[in-house]
């Protein structure tokens, strides 16, 4: 790839904006905090722009950015483990009870936020939401394929239990 994949900075920003909502939501699933999630969006934009030469084809841009956003989120989580915050930044209520959102969707979101660990969230999002194959997930997050399989199995089982979700 070369820098010309994005015509200029504005072109990059425009393309990035198209996926920024999604990146924010992904970050929030890990961090459960608005400000940290915004930091992830900024950091992801920074890393994507800085490393844009590494992108082979524009059609991989979204998946690539998502992977970076997940890594950024996990970096913040690691830092959180090493620090004790004086202020309780707490977790945000990310959403308001919305008449448009079904009860099932709210239950599912709460299960994802509350019950899944980092790895489970990663595998779930990448496979179920973004359609990456298990092999692609294995290569993306650098965990063995068999681990990806067992994590996915475990995650769906957990969600099934929490949400009475029917695999079908």
């Amino acid at each position, binding site marked *: 790839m070369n820098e010309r994949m994005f015509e200029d900075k504005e072109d990059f920003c425009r393309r990035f904006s198209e996926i920024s909502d999604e990146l924010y939501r992904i970050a929030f699933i890990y961090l459960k905090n608005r400000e940290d999630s915004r930091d992830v969006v900024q950091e992801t934009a920074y890393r994507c722009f800085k490393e844009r030469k590494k992108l082979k084809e524009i059609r991989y841009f979204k998946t690539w950015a998502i992977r970076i956003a997940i890594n950024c989120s996990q970096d913040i989580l690691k830092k959180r483990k090493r620090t004790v915050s004086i202020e309780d930044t707490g977790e945000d209520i990310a959403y308001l009870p919305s008449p448009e959102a079904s009860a099932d969707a709210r239950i599912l979101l709460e299960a994802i936020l509350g019950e899944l660990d980092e790895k489970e969230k990663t595998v779930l999002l990448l496979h179920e*939401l973004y359609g990456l194959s298990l092999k692609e997930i294995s290569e993306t997050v650098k965990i063995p394929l068999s681990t990806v399989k067992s994590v996915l199995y475990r995650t769906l089982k957990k969600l099934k239990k929490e949400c009475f979700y029917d695999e079908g």
Partner: protein
Amino acid sequence: MMKDELREAVGIIEIPEGLSEDIEKGVLRAMEEKQHEIKMLRKITAVAAIFMAAVIAAGAGIIFARNGRGVIQRAAEYKFMGFRTGTTEPVVVALSEEGSIIGKLDADSVSLKSETGETVDPDGIFLLSTYWLDENGDLQFTDIPVGGYLVETDLDGSSYELINFNSDDFGDRIIFDPAASFLGSEEEGTGYDTSEGELEISLEKTSDGQYSFVFTPKDEEKYPFSEASEYHPDAISGFKGESLESLGGSGASYLLGTGGPKLELDDGKGGKMIIDNENNTVEISGFGQDEKLWVRLRSVGLLLKNGKRLELHGNWVVKVG
């Protein structure tokens, strides 16, 4: 079905105001950094060129090396890595987030030691890199996934053995096979996948009704097996169908083919696995005909003819009966 529900669920998360400003800030930061790097590199290169000229002229023998990142390695770091003394062996170093070298692999103690000989705090490790001098005397490097480092390596790309220095999994031994492009974890008992890995392992029924492990390398030249092999029996577990039920274990190591006590594993539901070290066989009973038995192996070590040791982990499906 799941995708739609997941999309709906994730979509509930409210998007705050100001994301476009966050994007702008990120991009500007990257642009400013790039400008700064270019300035610094020009400065350092200029200084180094002058210094090199002076050094060569003075015959002091201090060497600056320029690595692939475009950063001039400090002489002290170069010395710490051992290249000043003329070693050509690859050196594994731990880098901080700022890019400075904070430790070097001590192969004897299998740990990362700082310049003062203290063990490096794994939390401080941002990146691990292997450095070596190529045939032209230039410094080359290859980055290792965060948390791992090389213990044994062939620079031609055969298997590596890594010890995980990630703070969460500190000390776990994992295997990295660049050909297979994934890592295995002793902690999770996973590693080579039979569909894509270098080896196939199966249990074959012998004529007298016993089972024996059969290791079939896909590339015999790359993995020439010796006769001896060993495994860690408490890492052997099995499960029927889709659920995992441990068959138990004793925690000791056994060397297959060289004697030692039999290992009996019982799943408490009539299923049994008896591993006979002396005869290198595995007897399985109490499972239904054609029932799937998943055998999970951890820390199965194979001694290769070239003296190296290859560790295996993974899940294999064996059809019983």
